[in-house]
């Protein structure tokens, strides 16, 4: 099993990246953030290109857009953890999310890409920004930089954190790149799951067969009594048959059964497969997610009630203090 990347390049990339992050983290004095960012980008670039070096010329290289999205996503991440103003950090995180959605697109996960944008960038991050605005005083016009609180401007123990994080990265990426060659695609399983999804759409399969003229007009996809088509993933065929001449609805003339090849234009679409996987395989988990959301809503309500109480208490204390002062 060959290496996916030269270990030297791997560690060089990690070290460069670590140095970059270390430099980029904000400090009390002026910190060389730009240099750090560049160094970090260089490190990641070394990593990714190092991976590419070992690839066979054509097939194995990822889509060019990948590099763009990866750069934007990781750049966004770096800014999230280095930008002294939390609002910007949140905005940069939206950038990261958008770039991630782009990567999802490359990975043929269209639904997830858009769901990510809608849920994450559209809902969660906006909440963040609201809360940040709520919890931060607006800076006065003339002293924009100074208004940012000290705890935002200076990062805590940057050296320790960077070393720790990038040792972690070194370990993780070593294992990942060592492992990728060893992972085997369980084709049978993939085929089985795909087959399951296709079984759910016999009518669409029938239309595709008609369109490809693979079957005559009066033939239909044969359905078992359970209402499922008979698909053989090995040979890529499906059983078709003529309807029962006696006219019983849904019955087939058994003698007319034959297998035909599935046209290459047909596929259970990604969203369909995902929906099938999501709803059919994880119905319990969906309910569970619902319970979690309900619980989270309750939690937020309880916590904000507590805020109301705090405010009331503060007011009561103040009035008590005032009255005490008045008596004195």
């Amino acid at each position: 099993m060959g290496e996916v990347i030269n270990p030297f390049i791997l560690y060089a990339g990690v070290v460069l990246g670590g140095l970059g992050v270390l430099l980029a983290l904000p400090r009390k004095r002026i910190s060389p953030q730009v240099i750090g960012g560049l160094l970090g980008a260089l490190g990641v670039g070394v990593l990714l290109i190092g991976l590419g070096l070992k690839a066979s010329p054509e097939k194995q290289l990822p889509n060019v857009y990948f590099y763009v999205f990866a750069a934007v996503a990781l750049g966004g991440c770096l800014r999230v953890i280095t930008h002294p103003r939390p609002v910007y950090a949140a905005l940069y995180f939206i950038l990261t999310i958008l770039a991630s959605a782009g990567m999802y697109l490359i990975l043929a996960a269209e639904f997830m890409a858009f769901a990510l944008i809608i849920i994450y960038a559209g809902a969660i991050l906006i909440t963040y920004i609201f809360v940040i605005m709520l919890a931060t005083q607006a800076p006065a016009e003339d002293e924009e930089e100074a208004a940012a609180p000290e705890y935002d401007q200076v990062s805590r123990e940057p050296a320790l954190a960077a070393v720790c994080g990038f040792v972690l990265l070194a370990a993780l990426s070593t294992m990942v790149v060592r492992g990728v060659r060893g992972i085997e695609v369980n084709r049978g399983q993939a085929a089985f799951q795909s087959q399951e999804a296709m079984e759910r759409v016999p009518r669409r399969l029938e239309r595709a067969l008609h369109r490809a003229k693979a079957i005559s007009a009066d033939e239909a996809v044969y359905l078992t009594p359970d209402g499922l088509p008979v698909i053989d993933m090995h040979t890529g065929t499906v059983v078709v048959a003529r309807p029962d001449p006696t006219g019983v609805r849904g019955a087939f003339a058994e003698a007319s059964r034959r297998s035909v090849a599935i046209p290459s234009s047909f596929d259970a679409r990604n969203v369909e497969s995902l929906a099938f996987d999501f709803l059919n395989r994880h119905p319990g988990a969906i309910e569970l997610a619902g319970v979690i959301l309900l619980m989270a809503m309750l939690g937020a309500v309880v916590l904000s009630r507590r805020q109301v109480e705090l405010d009331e208490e503060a007011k009561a204390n103040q009035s008590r203090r005032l009255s005490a002062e008045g008596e004195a």
Partner: protein
Amino acid sequence: MIERLSLLYPEIVLFLGACLVMVIGLSPKREVRSLCGFASAGSLLIAGLLAINTSAGNTTPLPGLLPYVKAILAGVGLLLVLLLSGVVDRRDEEEIAAGRRAFSAMRSNRAEFHAFFLFSLMGAMLCATADDLIWLFLALELTSLPTYVMVAVSTRGTRAQEAGVKYFFLGALGAGIFLYGFALLYGGTGSTNLAQIARELARQGAAGDINPIAMAGLMLAVVGVSFKIAAVPMHFYTPDVYQGAAAPVSAMLAFVPKTAGFVTILTLVSCAGWSYGFVDGRDVYGAGFALPAELRIALWVIAALTMTVGNVMAVLQTSIKRMLGYSSVAHSGYMLVGVLAGAAAGEESGYSFAQSGVAAVLFYLLVYGVGNLGAFAVLASMERRNPDGELVEADEFGDVRGLCRSSPLAGWTMVLSALSLLGLPPLLGFFGKFGLFSAGIAAGDYALVVILGLNSAIAAFYYLRLVAVSLLDEPQGSTYAPTTILARPLAGAVSALGVIVLIAFAEPLMQAATKAGRVAPMTLGVSPEGVRRAQTTELPEPGTGDRGAPSGAPAPEGEHDGAGH
């Protein structure tokens, strides 16, 4: 799904109970509101009864876990409901009762508090039901998310909020870690189904080494989940949170998330096999039935460090809650010895409680839950008013001085709980420790057993101090008075009684734990032949016949069977 639904009855009952409690809590009538606790207890009781009658699952690596874990969760949960009464809204209710204020649904948190508790228990139960990583992830989150809020609102002081923020943020970090681990585990094995992960890991192990990605995933998952059980290196939050939260909530933290965490760790580790699967020195399951060396060494180190750090740090404490927090860390370390020692194999005979580490862990969870609850209940039932008029619980060692004389019930509860936690024969704790020791010895891990023994000796320092302070010292100048909420000392008394009475039922409980800790045969078939045998015989195999699906097809849920034939 319908078949699995029957396994979920306890959780469903808890969910319905939570909904009921939330509605009840909004009632303007005081009497109706006070039914919250009863409604929670009732749903727990029903859930417990259902759990006992639940048949074991058949799709998880540890199928027997399900009824046992749910039953002990419901049982200890019942005590916790008693203990949790009056944690929130007490002052409001007093003022409403005194007519100083009208009831406002906007201010009442009691119903939600009980609902959170039920949600958390439900999550822990779901961990035992989990046969899928996604499910496991959601169940873990459902277990811990409510506890974050419970900690933050448990008292009015800033300490609870500090505890809440530490717990929540570090918990989120832990969640990120184990989620990443789950992702890598999925990538390394190609499935989120636990049974299939187990099979794939076994195949990889038999073929040579487990894929590094899967290995990294496993490690990240185990380390991340060890946040829930407060094991090193994820233990840092424990003392602060236990100290900052109200004692009843701390008692709950020491049991519910810990149980969920151990169930998860056991499940994950059972997917990777156990190293000591030797019968009479023969490796009957083939070399594959071994906990991977990386996992074993890491767990070994974690166990040793967890015990030692927890015990050592507990020695210095002056706050009892904090000390109990550290001791909670130490107890997790003890239990990890059982995790390392491994499971009783699937055969019906030839394995006993004394040899099964998993059974020892499961039994110890109950033992620890009961004993720990008693100690916290004593703290919760001693209180005084601080200058602000808030009720503050006892916490320092001085607060329980001479408790046996000033308030014998609480005092003896404390003494019994502490002695049981210490593992003094013949109290219940001894039987728990006995299981762990014997499992460790049976597994041949003598070094760890020695460390366990030394740590038990260190534990005597602080537990006996607790006993001595409350039993031997003269009561002096304590401003603490017994609480007006009778349910709390009652919970303590029941748990203290449990420490004694359960000795008599130790045998059936150990048997139940042994049954629960049995690894499903499918994870045992590890040699290539074994894998094949497991695939052809043990699992319902959809699409093997007419569809000609290739080998290794998954069988995540039963209904595909029905659909396929």
